[in-house]
């Protein structure tokens, strides 16, 4: 039995229609109830077009001021204390001027600045190099400018750590769970083999709270929307001379620093 071209085209056409229609029908029948489900952001959440932070270093005076801020963050996010600088996991930490702002230092720098610790954290850059290199899109930039980590996707390749010029990312060489002092039951921990960093407290913003470090800083850290001229952060940026870390690299960091002078300045 042979078919001519006309018959072949007919059969091909009909089977295409049945095939396409059939999959649609199956899809419709298989549609589960989840399609009716809806997701929405929390109406109470703090929102912005571009989140940013201003660190007023002159307001951080005692060792305790720093400790309170760092502890608040690390407690909130189940950041382990491995007690070993090689394995260290840090979201917000202290750095010397020379290390925080390389290229800006000089031999005759004021003593008060030279030895003053600077609080550094992820800069949530506008052009995040970590996001460009992430092969799984585990790190990505949200619409409000936060450079987020999706731990579910991180494969631990550490490209982002190599790409980040600020050393803002830490790798979990060990299972961090046994090293968490007191677990915050409301926030997950991490597993061995993922990279983590500051997330500008996205989980607190979603609940309508400011980041934990800002809350604990007693006004030294200011959080706000860069695109809103009336925001607290913009007001401070208008009134003060501020610098950013390694801005010459073009990543456009969103963490600004007010250096201030010495106490007698």
């Amino acid at each position: 039995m042979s078919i001519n071209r006309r018959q072949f085209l007919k059969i091909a056409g009909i089977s295409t229609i049945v095939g396409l229609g059939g999959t649609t029908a199956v899809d419709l029948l298989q549609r589960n109830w989840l399609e009716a489900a809806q997701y929405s952001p929390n109406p109470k959440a703090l929102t912005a077009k571009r989140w940013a932070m201003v660190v007023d270093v002159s307001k951080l005076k005692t060792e305790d001021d720093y400790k309170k801020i760092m502890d608040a963050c690390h407690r909130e996010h189940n950041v382990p204390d491995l007690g070993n600088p090689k394995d260290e996991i840090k979201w917000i930490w202290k750095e010397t001027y020379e290390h925080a702002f390389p290229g800006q230092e000089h031999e005759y720098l004021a003593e008060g600045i030279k030895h003053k610790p600077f609080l550094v954290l992820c800069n949530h850059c506008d052009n995040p190099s970590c996001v460009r290199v992430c092969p799984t899109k585990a790190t990505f930039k949200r619409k409000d400018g936060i450079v987020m980590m999706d731990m579910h996707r991180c494969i631990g390749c550490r490209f982002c750590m190599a790409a980040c010029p600020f050393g803002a990312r830490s790798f979990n060489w060990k299972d961090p769970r046994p090293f968490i002092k007191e677990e915050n039951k409301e926030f997950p921990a991490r597993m061995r083999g993922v990279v983590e960093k500051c997330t500008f407290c996205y989980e607190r913003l979603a609940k309508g709270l400011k980041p934990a470090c800002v809350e604990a800083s007693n006004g030294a850290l200011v959080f706000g929307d860069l695109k809103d001229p009336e925001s607290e952060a913009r007001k401070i940026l208008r009134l003060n001379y501020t610098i950013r870390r390694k801005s010459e690299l073009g990543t456009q960091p969103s963490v600004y620093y007010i250096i201030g002078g010495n106490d007698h300045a």
Partner: protein
Amino acid sequence: MYNGIKIIIGLLIFAALVTFPFYSKMGKATAKPDPKVDTPEIQKLAEKKCVEPKEFMKTEHMKMLNDWRDTVVREGNLIYVSSDGKKYTISLQNTCMNCHSNKKKFCDECHNYSAVIPYCWDCHIEPKENKT
């Protein structure tokens, strides 16, 4: 066959070992998983209902948890509107496990039975009462 007797004995031993799990359990029923939903938190609820109907949760909870984690992490949606219009906060630790505080009897019971190893608890912190 060269060394035939040795080969056949070897094969018999091999077959016996490979089939051991089957005939050792033959005719015996394994205890059926019996997940419990009678936590004190659930007892306190006025209306003992999960976010979606029980039958749906039984078959689709894994898909739902996947959707939840993507929408909350990647899109920043914190609120789930269920099919009956109620709103829930999307959170494994703070919403699901708040009621189902018995991870061993609720999650592990079936997952162990069906040899499913979800990696939720690699990072997420399980409710305290189950820490032994």
